[in-house]
C-alpha cells in the first residue's frame, strides 16, 4: 500500500499549464523531496495533494484511499508553509493546539462560556494541553508556549510550524520550503531536525525545495521537477550519477556540469571541439551528442603537450580556492565556454592563471545526451 499515489495530475491557471501529467508514488514511510527551480509548480502540486487546490485532471490517493472529492480537513495531511503561516493573534500553545481543538471538540463545546464549564470540553482542553506540551518539548519550544509568534525568532517560528504539523499525527507531511527563510547555519541544523522528525513520525514526507543540498542530504528519493513535469525520481546518489536528462544533470551539482557538443566516431570516441573523449562505444557513428563531465570527474595533467586520444588541452584562466576544494576554470583550445575542474587544494602550488593544462575525463564518467537532452546509454 502506497503512502501517496499521484496519478496523471494536470493543472492550468488560465492559459498557463503549471502541471503536465504528473505521476508519482511515495512509499508509506518514505522521505521524498521535490526539487526544482522556483515557479516549476512544486507548491501547486503540494496544494493539490492537500486539497487546497483542485486539479484539472488526474487523481490522488493517500494511504490507498482515493481523496479527490475530500476537503483538506478530511484528508488528514499536515503542511508546513514557507511563511510558516502561524496565526498571529494566538499564542504558540493556541497555534499548536488549534488542529487538536478542531478535531476533538464539537462547535458548541468551543463557545466561550461552555469551553470553561462543560466537563467534556474541559477534559478535551486537558488532553490538548498535554499533547501540545509534548510536541513543544520535542522541538524545544516549551518555554515559549505563552508567547505570540511575533515575539519569536525565525528558527523558533519554524519549530512552532513543525509542532503544529506533527501534533495531530497526520498520515502524510507536506513541507513547502520550510527552511528557506532561515539563515544558512540554522538551515543545516534544521535539516537534521526534520530528518529526525521523519524517523519518529514514521509516515510519508513530501518535502519541496529549490535547494539541492537539502534534497541530497535528507531524502530517500529526489523527484526533479521542471516546467511542471517530473523529469526523474531516484535516490540522491543515482540522480547525481545517472541523470536521465541533460536538464537534470545541469540542475544538480554545483558548480554546474561541463557540457561539450560532440559527434560519435566509428571507434567509439566522441569528437568534441579541441579533442576526443571516450565513452561513445555502442552508439552509431555520426550520432550528434552532448557530452557532460562533472567538475570532479576530470583528471588534471600539467603538461601542455596533448592531442593524444581522450584528452583536451587548455589554459587556466581563473582559480577559486575554497580551502577544501580548488576550482579551476580553463579555456579549451577548442573554444567554447570555460571548463570547470575540481582539483585537490594542493594543486594551487602548481597552477596559476595562464598555466597550460591537459584534461581527461575519468574512465566511464562521460555522460552522453542526445541533442534533445535525453540520456544516451552507451555502456559497452
Amino acid at each position, binding site marked *: 500500500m502506497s503512502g501517496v499515489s499521484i496519478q496523471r495530475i494536470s493543472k492550468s491557471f488560465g492559459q498557463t499549464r503549471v502541471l503536465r501529467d504528473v505521476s508519482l508514488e511515495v512509499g508509506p514511510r518514505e522521505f521524498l523531496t521535490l526539487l526544482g527551480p522556483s515557479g516549476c509548480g512544486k507548491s501547486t502540486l503540494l496544494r493539490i495533494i492537500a486539497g487546497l487546490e483542485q486539479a484539472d485532471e488526474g487523481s490522488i490517493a493517500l494511504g490507498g484511499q482515493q481523496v479527490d472529492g475530500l476537503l483538506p480537513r478530511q484528508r488528514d*495531511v499536515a*503542511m508546513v508553509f*514557507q511563511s510558516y503561516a502561524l*496565526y498571529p*493573534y494566538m499564542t504558540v500553545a493556541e497555534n499548536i493546539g*488549534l*488542529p487538536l481543538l478542531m478535531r476533538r471538540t464539537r462547535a458548541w463545546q468551543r463557545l466561550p462560556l461552555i469551553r470553561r464549564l462543560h466537563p467534556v470540553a474541559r477534559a478535551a482542553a486537558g488532553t490538548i494541553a498535554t499533547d501540545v506540551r509534548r510536541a513543544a518539548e520535542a522541538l524545544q519550544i516549551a518555554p515559549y508556549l505563552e508567547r505570540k509568534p511575533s515575539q519569536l525568532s525565525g528558527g523558533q517560528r519554524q519549530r512552532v510550524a513543525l509542532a503544529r504539523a506533527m501534533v495531530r499525527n497526520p498520515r502524510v507531511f507536506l513541507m513547502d520550503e520550510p527552511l528557506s527563510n532561515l539563515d544558512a547555519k540554522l538551515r543545516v541544523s534544521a535539516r537534521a531536525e526534520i530528518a529526525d522528525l521523519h524517523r519518529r513520525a514514521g509516515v510519508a514526507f513530501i518535502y519541496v525545495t529549490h535547494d539541492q543540498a537539502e534534497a541530497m542530504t535528507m531524502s530517500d528519493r529526489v523527484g526533479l521537477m521542471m516546467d511542471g513535469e517530473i523529469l526523474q525520481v531516484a535516490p540522491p546518489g543515482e540522480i547525481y550519477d545517472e541523470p536521465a536528462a541533460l536538464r537534470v544533470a545541469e540542475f544538480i551539482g554545483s558548480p554546474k556540469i561541463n557540457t561539450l557538443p560532440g559527434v560519435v566516431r566509428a571507434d567509439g570516441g566522441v569528437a568534441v571541439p579541441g579533442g576526443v573523449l571516450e565513452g561513445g562505444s555502442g552508439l552509431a557513428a555520426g550520432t550528434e551528442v552532448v557530452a557532460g563531465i562533472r567538475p570532479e570527474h576530470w583528471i588534471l595533467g600539467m603538461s601542455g603537450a596533448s592531442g593524444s586520444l581522450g584528452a583536451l588541452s587548455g589554459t587556466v584562466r581563473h582559480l577559486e580556492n575554497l580551502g577544501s576544494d580548488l576550482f579551476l576554470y580553463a579555456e579549451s583550445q577548442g573554444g567554447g565556454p570555460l571548463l570547470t575542474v575540481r582539483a585537490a587544494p594542493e594543486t594551487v602550488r602548481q597552477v596559476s592563471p595562464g598555466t597550460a593544462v591537459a584534461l581527461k575525463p575519468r574512465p566511464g564518467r562521460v555522460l552522453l545526451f542526445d541533442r534533445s537532452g535525453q540520456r544516451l546509454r552507451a555502456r559497452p
Partner: protein
Amino acid sequence: MNGARTLPFAIFRHVVLAAGAVVMIAPFIWLLSLAVKPADEIFTTDIRLLPIRWDAERNFTEAFSKVPLHRYLLNGVIVTAAIFFLQVLVALPAAYALAKLRFGLSRPLFALVLLGLLIPGHVPAIPHYIMLSSAGLLNSYAALVLPSIISVFGIFWIRQFFRTVPDDLIHAARLDGLSEFSIVWRIMLPAAIPALTAFGILSVVFHWNEYFWPLLVVTSPDMATPALGTVYLRNTEAGTDYGPLMAGTAIITAPLVIAFLLAQRRFIEGMTLTGLKG
C-alpha cells in the same frame, strides 16, 4: 533647505491651519459658552466667553427636565451598537468571500458592491419605509436599525483589508480543520480588528448623528435618537430658552467628542490603514 526659507513658510502654514481650526471650533466654543450663561447674558451686545454669573446648573437641569435626554442617549447607544454589531455580522463573511474565495459570481457580486457605494443613502429610503410599514415595524428599534445593517462601504473596506491577509494563513486553517465560518471568526476577525475599529468609528459617528431616517420612522419621543432629540428640545417651549437648549445640545454631542479624544490614535491609525501590511 535653509532656515530663512523654511521658517516663514512654517509660520504661514501654522497661521492658515490655526485660522481653519478657529472657524471650525468657534461654534462649539460658543455653544459651551451659552450653555453656562444665564438668559439675560445671552443677548448682550458685548462678546464675552465666560459668563459674569454662572448658570450652568439651571440650564442643564432644565434641559433634562424638558425632554427625556437620558432616553435619547440610551436610544442612541442601543441603535448605534446594534447597527454596528449587525453590520459586522454581515460584512465579515461577505468580505471574506469576496476577498478570498474563488467562485463564479465573485466578480459580478463585487461589482454590485462597488455600485452600491455610488448610490446615495437616501435613495432607498421610501422603499425601506414602505417595507417597514407593511411589516408593522415603524416607530421601533427595528425600524431604526434594519435598513442600515448591510453596509456596502463596510464590506468594501474590510474586503480590501482581507486581500492583504496571506493565503497561506487560510490554507493552514483549512488543513487544521476549520470550516469557512470558523476561519472568518477565528482567523480573519482578529486580523481585521484595526480595520473594524476604523469602520466602527465611522459607523457610530454617522448613525449617532443621523437625522433624516429617524425623522421618517420615529413618531414618539421615547424612540427618538440623539439628533432627533435636539429637535424635540427645540420644539418645546424651552426652544426659545437658549441656555437649556445649548446645554442639551452639548450633552448630546459630548459622547462622540469624548470617544474621539479617547480613541484618537486608533482613529488615525485606522484611516491610514491602506499602507499597512497584513
